[in-house]
């Protein structure tokens, strides 16, 4: 009994520094945010006034909020599956490549290394009408010029394309690690049995990479709700909120409208969404995954 206590005490001691930071910088702010979300705290109220769920009620009647949430779902659906598929493809490719394997890997990984702000500036240029890369490409094929970032129906797709470019290389690294963990004997056995390449991928590689896929998909999905830098540079959520995402909307509400109560309420929604994503994937999917 005494020994167990000592062992647990030691474990707690080891955890203490992280726990302290977690309390101070995560749980405490979350608690404060929860509290503030129940107050009207904007420019017309010098002292915050308690309004209960007032902010949440206003939020759900807010057209922009609904649009932002819709945009975010589209953004997640657009970036996550494609980003993951591309990452897997690149990983398999980079793993097999005989010539210039290192070059291949760094080429795929390179976008990850550029800071988001710099990447956004580069892509702002790529999407510029008239002389941007995309316009040049289109005119090469004799097509009309398109204002990618200035057209409501296109701007989200332009963003999705950029984010996939930016993130796929990062996820590829996890898949590469995952691929190297799969036992060679399985492949040798399959080879001896004369199993086709596609079947090998479907029956061996893909299932055994599921833990990695779970991990990557959680990161990708939460990222879809956390990205904001590119909007600052490229569109400011425009035109007419067509590319506005939740985090940017929170930023606007807090630092452009100075409506702190509403910004807190939006933040609470955001936290709820992130927790929900993690919980569903972790508890729901984890049971159906094979581990080595």
């Amino acid at each position: 009994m005494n020994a167990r206590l000592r062992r647990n005490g030691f474990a707690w001691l080891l955890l203490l520094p992280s726990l302290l930071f977690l309390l101070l910088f995560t749980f405490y702010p979350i608690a404060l945010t929860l509290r503030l979300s129940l107050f009207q705290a904007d420019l017309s109220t010098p002292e915050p006034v308690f309004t209960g769920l007032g902010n949440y009620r206003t939020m759900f009647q807010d057209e922009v909020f609904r649009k932002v949430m819709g945009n975010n779902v589209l953004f997640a659906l657009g970036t996550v599956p494609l980003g993951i598929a591309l990452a897997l493809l690149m990983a398999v490719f980079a793993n097999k490549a005989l010539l210039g394997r290192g070059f291949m890997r760094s080429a795929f990984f390179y976008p990850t290394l550029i800071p988001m702000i710099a990447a956004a500036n580069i892509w702002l240029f790529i999407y510029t009408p008239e002389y941007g890369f995309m316009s040049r490409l289109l005119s090469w094929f004799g097509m009309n010029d398109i204002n990618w970032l200035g057209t409501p129906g296109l701007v989200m797709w332009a963003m999705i394309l950029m984010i996939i470019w930016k993130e796929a290389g990062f996820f590829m690294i996890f898949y590469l690690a995952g691929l190297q963990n799969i036992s060679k004997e399985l492949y040798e056995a399959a080879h001896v049995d004369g199993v086709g390449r596609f079947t090998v991928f479907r029956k061996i590689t893909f299932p055994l990479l599921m833990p990695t896929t779970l991990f990557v998909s959680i990161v990708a999905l939460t990222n879809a709700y956390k990205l904001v830098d590119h909007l600052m540079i490229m569109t400011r959520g425009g035109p007419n909120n067509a590319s506005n995402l939740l985090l940017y909307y929170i930023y606007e509400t807090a630092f452009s409208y100075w409506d702190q109560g509403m910004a807190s309420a939006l933040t609470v929604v955001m936290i709820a969404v992130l927790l929900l994503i993690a919980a569903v994937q972790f508890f729901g999917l984890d049971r159906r995954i094979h581990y080595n």
Partner: protein
Amino acid sequence: MRKVNVMVMAAALGMSVLAGCGNNTDTNSNTNNNNAAGKGSGTGAGEAAAAPADKGTKTELTYYYPIAVGGPLTATIEAMTADFMKENPDIVVKPVYTGSYADTAVKTQAGVQSKQPPDVAVLQSTELFSLLDMDAIIPLDEFIEQEGGDTYLSDFYPAFMENSQTEGKTYSIPFQRSTIVLYYNKDMFKAAGLDPEKPPATWAEMQEYAVKLAGGGKWGLEIPVTGYAYWMLQTFALQNGNNLMAPDGKKVMFNTPENVEGLQYWVDLAAKHKAMPGGVTDWSTVPSDFLEGKTAMMYHTTGNLTNVKKNASFDFGVSFLPAQKQYGSPTGGGNFYIFKDIDKKKQEAAWKFVKFMTETERAAQWSIDTGYVAVKKSAYETGRMKAYAAEFPAALIARDQLEYASAELSTHNNGRIVKILSDSVQAALTNELTPAEALQKAQNEADKALASFNK
């Protein structure tokens, strides 16, 4: 082995989820940001407190300034503060570059909330009501009285003072101020068979010229939208009659027939006449397009004049914005504010600094260096400005246009009002709504956003 794997995965997941939440709350929770900013300016205060001990009675000022136009203005600002310290050895000014106007407003607000405001800052002149609602700034009337009251103020252009005053008090001093002007490419005018010395003077002429100049992968005109849609709409509103808001900042008039007509004109330039790119154009790509010869004309702030002058490889002209019922442009740009929660002594030193920065000769030099309009009439009587204007007459256009200029859109709850109007203008420009629908929607939403200030 299998267990360990699961454990590692779980731990990694847990960490990443928590890290995710942590990141977000950091960005969004004001408390956190304020603390961080508080620490930032706290260092300054600490040094200020330490200074008197070893250097006698130096007053230290933290000065926040944004940069909103092209060119190496940081060096200019630092040289100006160095000059000030030479003249006032008992005051130390620490200039802090704080990014765009929006970033500067965020940093300032964080400082105000944590009781560590800057001592003096340049913020958009339109922040007046927000700063008053936050109880962040002091009126400057006492200081102005010492300088001669109305005589002192009358040297500033009245159009610039409009955004500085409310309810009989003056809260800020104009500094880097602008109006919107028309830039045009004389070479492209010649190529299109237009007289390069006669820019379009009316809406009708503008439309005709823009159509003539467009074609062959080039545009006749570009009007920036992202970030400043409301400002550009103001040009059409003023040219067609009236400003968009009441002087007390509690009411807006968005959906008037004149404004609908103005927005319709703007929308038609792209949608109907194909003289302008469709959709929404970015604030910062418009000057690049102009310099690249991709557009023959552009609406832009006169604050970009020096940038265009330095970088244009062709002969260009600057003129008033075309008129409908009259000429018109909103003013724009930043003013000096002095903050409330600081020492009386610091406020006095800050006033000295503000006065210094806007002195006649300095205002003239600042205008020459940047392209901003000199805020004082007397600046245009100085030798250096006269010499500059003789060599480069375009420098006087924005000043002359001031006669027809009015206050920039500024109301209570300004951030939201500006956003509401900008969104609606964008909806019209992208053909999601008709101009009438868009402005009606903006009016309804703005009325709602202003309701709590009209009780």
